[in-house]
């Protein structure tokens, strides 16, 4: 649980150079009344090589694949041709990145981003006069 480097910085992002080519991890995003849950597939990434960063309203998920391969390994068939995953999302203001929770287990990242209290839905009573 939350053994992930969750970094929050208020500094405005400088105009970033075009980042190096990276794999785009597949994700599932599910929203319920209390927040958003994101699942991302990052196989081959260890906890130490996973980074979840929030900067302003930008959520970045990054990871580096580290496989134990024997010496002199020659690749004969490659479907995963890059060693870096990266995916960026823009959060909306009703989400509370301060209370983000992360789990990482066997290459699957689960992020829970709760909504700020006042943004949670309330039933509005309609009174008949």
């Amino acid at each position, binding site marked *: 649980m939350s053994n992930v480097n969750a970094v929050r910085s208020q500094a405005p992002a400088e105009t970033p150079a075009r980042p190096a080519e990276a794999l785009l991890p597949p994700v*599932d995003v599910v929203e319920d009344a209390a927040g958003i849950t994101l699942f991302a597939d990052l196989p081959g990434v260890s906890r130490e090589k996973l980074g979840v960063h929030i900067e302003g309203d930008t959520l970045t998920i990054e990871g580096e694949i580290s496989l134990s391969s*024997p010496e002199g390994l020659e690749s004969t068939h490659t479907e995963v041709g890059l060693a870096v995953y*990266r995916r960026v999302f823009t959060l909306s203001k009703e989400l509370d990145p301060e209370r983000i929770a992360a789990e990482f287990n066997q290459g699957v990242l689960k992020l829970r981003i709760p909504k700020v209290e006042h943004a949670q839905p309330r039933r509005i009573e309609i009174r008949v006069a």
Partner: protein
Amino acid sequence: MFYRSLFPRDVLAELERFQRGMQQSGDVSPSIRGTGRGGYPAMNVGSTPRSVEIYAFAPGLDPASLDVQLDKGVLTIAGERPSVLPPKDAPATVHIDERFYGRFRRVVTLPDDVDPNAVSARYTDGVLHVSVPRRAAAQARRINVV
């Protein structure tokens, strides 16, 4: 849809993914078992003079549920990945569903000189690594010319 706009996609990344897909479909002589590319799990295969190494990128599985079989020089990796998506009647909205769910089976033909009795398989960080040694007799030897 209103909620989709909370998560604008990275258009450049989407284009890159599309481009990669196009390159992969240009494979002119696919295997008789189909190219299998883009299937789950993604696979890398490599070899050394002493072994054949297979990496299956299969995140989020219980290693006990993985079925790895080697029969007549054909390695089969099968299993099932349960869904994390909420049931249809749940009060939740699925905005993106790209991850694979369900049963899967992938097959790799191994070279003739592997030793089926000495296979080892490990599941680490969501990657299944199968190592199949080559038979000692098949390993390259230096022949001295006298």
